[in-house]
C-alpha cells in the first residue's frame, strides 16, 4: 500500500460517527442451507462459499465505486483523427495557457484584496467576515472558470440559518469549489499536505472551515465540539459535510457516516452529478495528486455538472440516525442517478474486521447443529 495515497483521501468525515457495517449488510447470504438431513456431501460442498469468493475476485461493487472511467476514444478513423489532433492543439496550447492566465489573475486579485481586508479590518468583524466570504466565493469562481465549469444549479440557494447542515455526495475536491462559488460554506475536511494544506490554514479558516487529522483521536473530540458550536451560531456560514468521507466515482454512493445526522439539525441534501462527456471529474487519490487532477481538468474542454439543492429533511419521530442517513442517501442517489452500495468508504484504508464474516458462519453452524440434534 502506498503511504502517499493514504494521506490524501479527501475531506469531511469523523471517525466517531462510523456506523456499524452490520446494520447495512444485506441479510440472507447464499450459504447453502441443506434441506433435510445433512450428508457428507453437503458438509464437504463448499462451492457456494468458493463461488462467492471467486465472484468477489472477478468483480465487486466496492472496487467499482473507486474505479476511474477512462474516456471512450473517438479518434479511431481517418476523418476523426485530424479533428482530435486539432482538439489537442487547442486544448493544450490555447485553452490551457489561457486558463493558467485566468487562474493567476484570479489569485493576484484575490490575494491583493484578501490580505488587506484580513489584516486591516480587524476591528470590524462583521464587515470583514462578509468581505472575506465574497472574496472566497470569487476565488472559487476563478477556479471554476479555469476548467470552463458549466454548472447548472437547480433549486433554492442555501441560506445562512442556525441549526442546519448541508450534505452532498462526494466525487472530488472540486465539489467543494463548485458549491463554494455559489455560497461560502464552512466545510469539514481532512487536513491535507502541500499547497492545499496551506490554503486550508490561511484562507479557508476565514470562512469557518473545520479540519482534522484522520489519525489523531484527540482531534476528533475537538472537531465534534467545534461542529456543535458552529451549527448553533446564527451568522456562521452554512455547514457542508460530505458524509461519504471519501471520493466516489459519481456512479455509486457509499454509506453515509451518521455524524451529520446526529446534530439535531435540519439536513439539506445536495446532489451533484457530473457529465463525463469531456472529462471524468472523479479524483482517484490513489493514482493522482490533486495538482495532477486539476491539470487534467484544465486541459479538457469543459467540466459539465448539475447541482440540485433538495428539500430539507428532519429526523422523523422514531427514526434512528442511520435510517435518517439512509433516507437522505436515497434522495441524493435518486436525484443524481447513483447506485447505492452497502459499503463503508473507510474500507479503502482498513480491512473489514473478522466480525463481518460471522453472519455467514452462523448460518453454516446452525445447519450443522441441527444435524447434531437429530437422532
Amino acid at each position, binding site marked *: *500500500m*502506498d503511504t502517499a495515497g493514504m494521506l490524501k483521501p479527501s475531506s469531511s468525515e469523523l471517525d466517531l460517527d462510523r456506523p456499524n457495517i452490520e446494520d447495512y449488510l444485506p441479510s440472507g447470504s447464499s450459504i447453502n442451507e441443506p434441506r433435510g438431513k*445433512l*450428508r*457428507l*456431501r453437503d*458438509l*464437504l*460442498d*463448499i*462451492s*457456494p*462459499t*468458493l*463461488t*462467492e*469468493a*471467486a*465472484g*468477489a*475476485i*472477478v*468483480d*465487486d*461493487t*466496492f*472496487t467499482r465505486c473507486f*474505479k476511474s472511467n*477512462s*474516456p*471512450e*476514444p473517438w*479518434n479511431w478513423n481517418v476523418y476523426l483523427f485530424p479533428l*482530435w489532433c486539432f482538439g*489537442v492543439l487547442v486544448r493544450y496550447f490555447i485553452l490551457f495557457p489561457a486558463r493558467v492566465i485566468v487562474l493567476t489573475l484570479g489569485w493576484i486579485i484575490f490575494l491583493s484584496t484578501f490580505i488587506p481586508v484580513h489584516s486591516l479590518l480587524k476591528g470590524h468583524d462583521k464587515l470583514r467576515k462578509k468581505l472575506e466570504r465574497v472574496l472566497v466565493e470569487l476565488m472559487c469562481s476563478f477556479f471554476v472558470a479555469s476548467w470552463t465549469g458549466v454548472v447548472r444549479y437547480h433549486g433554492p440557494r442555501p441560506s445562512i440559518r442556525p441549526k442546519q447542515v448541508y450534505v452532498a455526495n462526494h466525487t472530488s475536491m472540486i465539489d467543494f469549489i463548485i458549491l463554494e462559488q455559489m455560497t461560502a460554506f464552512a466545510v469539514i475536511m481532512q487536513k491535507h499536505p502541500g499547497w492545499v494544506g496551506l490554503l486550508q490554514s490561511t484562507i479557508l479558516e476565514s470562512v469557518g472551515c473545520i479540519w482534522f487529522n484522520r489519525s489523531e483521536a484527540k482531534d476528533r473530540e475537538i472537531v465534534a465540539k467545534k461542529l456543535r458550536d458552529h451549527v448553533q451560531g446564527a451568522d456562521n456560514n452554512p455547514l457542508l459535510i460530505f458524509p461519504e468521507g471519501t471520493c466516489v466515482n459519481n456512479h455509486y454512493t457509499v454509506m453515509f457516516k451518521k455524524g451529520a445526522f446526529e446534530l439535531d439539525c435540519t439536513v439539506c441534501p445536495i446532489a451533484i452529478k457530473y457529465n463525463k462527456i469531456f472529462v471524468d471529474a472523479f479524483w482517484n487519490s*490513489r*493514482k*493522482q495528486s490533486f495538482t*495532477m487532477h486539476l*491539470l*487534467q481538468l484544465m*486541459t479538457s474542454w469543459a467540466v459539465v455538472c448539475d447541482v440540485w439543492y433538495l428539500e430539507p429533511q428532519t429526523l422523523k419521530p422514531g427514526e434512528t440516525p442511520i435510517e435518517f442517513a439512509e433516507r437522505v442517501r436515497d434522495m441524493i442517489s435518486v436525484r443524481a442517478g447513483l447506485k447505492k452500495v452497502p*459499503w463503508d468508504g473507510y*474500507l479503502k484504508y482498513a*480491512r*473489514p474486521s473478522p466480525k*463481518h*464474516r*460471522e453472519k*455467514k*458462519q*452462523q448460518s*453454516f*453452524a*446452525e445447519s*450443522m*447443529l441441527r*444435524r*447434531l440434534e437429530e437422532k
Partner: protein
Amino acid sequence: MVYEAGAPFSCSSRHSMIDIVLFSLLGESMGSASSMLTQYDIEEVQEYCDHLFSQQEIVSLYERFCQLDRNAKGFISADEFLSVPEFAMNPLSQWLLKMVDGLNFKDFVAFLSTFSAKASAQHKIELIFKMYDSDCNGKVSFNDIMKVLRDLSGPFMSDDQREQVLIRVLKEAGYTKESYLTVDDFFKVFGNSNIKMEVEVPVD
C-alpha cells in the same frame, strides 16, 4: 518463477509528472488497458485455460487483474486480494489466499476458469478437494476437514460439536475418523449431483 512469468503481462500505472501528461494524451487516444493485450496474448491465455473463457472475458479479466495489481508487479499480492472487502469477509479467504497469492495473469485466469460455466463438474470437484488438501499430499484426513469446518462455522460451534457432526456424517457415508479421502472418494461422494459453482465474468 511465478513472478518472472508475470512480466509480459504487467500493467503500467506509475509515472513521473511529465509521463502523466503524455500518458493522459496517449490514454485519450488509445483507450483502456485492453489495447495492451495483443491477439497473440489473448490466444495464449485462452489456450492455457482450455478455452473456458471467451476472448472478451479474458480482456475483462485482464482489466480486473490490472486493477487489483495496484503496483503493476505482474502478480496480485495477498494484501491486494484482501483489499476487496467482499473477499476479505469470506470465511474461506485464508484458504483461498494460499491458492491465489502471487499468481501471474495466466495462472489467475486458469484458477478462475474452474468457475466458468463451461468447466466440467470434475474440474470443480478437484478444486474443492485441493482446498481441503492443505498439505498437498493427495489425501484428505479427518483433521484437514476439521480445519476447514472451523473457519466455516467460526465461533458458533465448539470443536467437540464439530467433531461429533463430522464423525457421524463420515460414518453414514462409510468412512471412519481414521480414513483418508482421495480425489476419487470426493468424486464418489459428490456423485452426479449438480455443483453450482459458476461465476459470470462481466463483459461490457
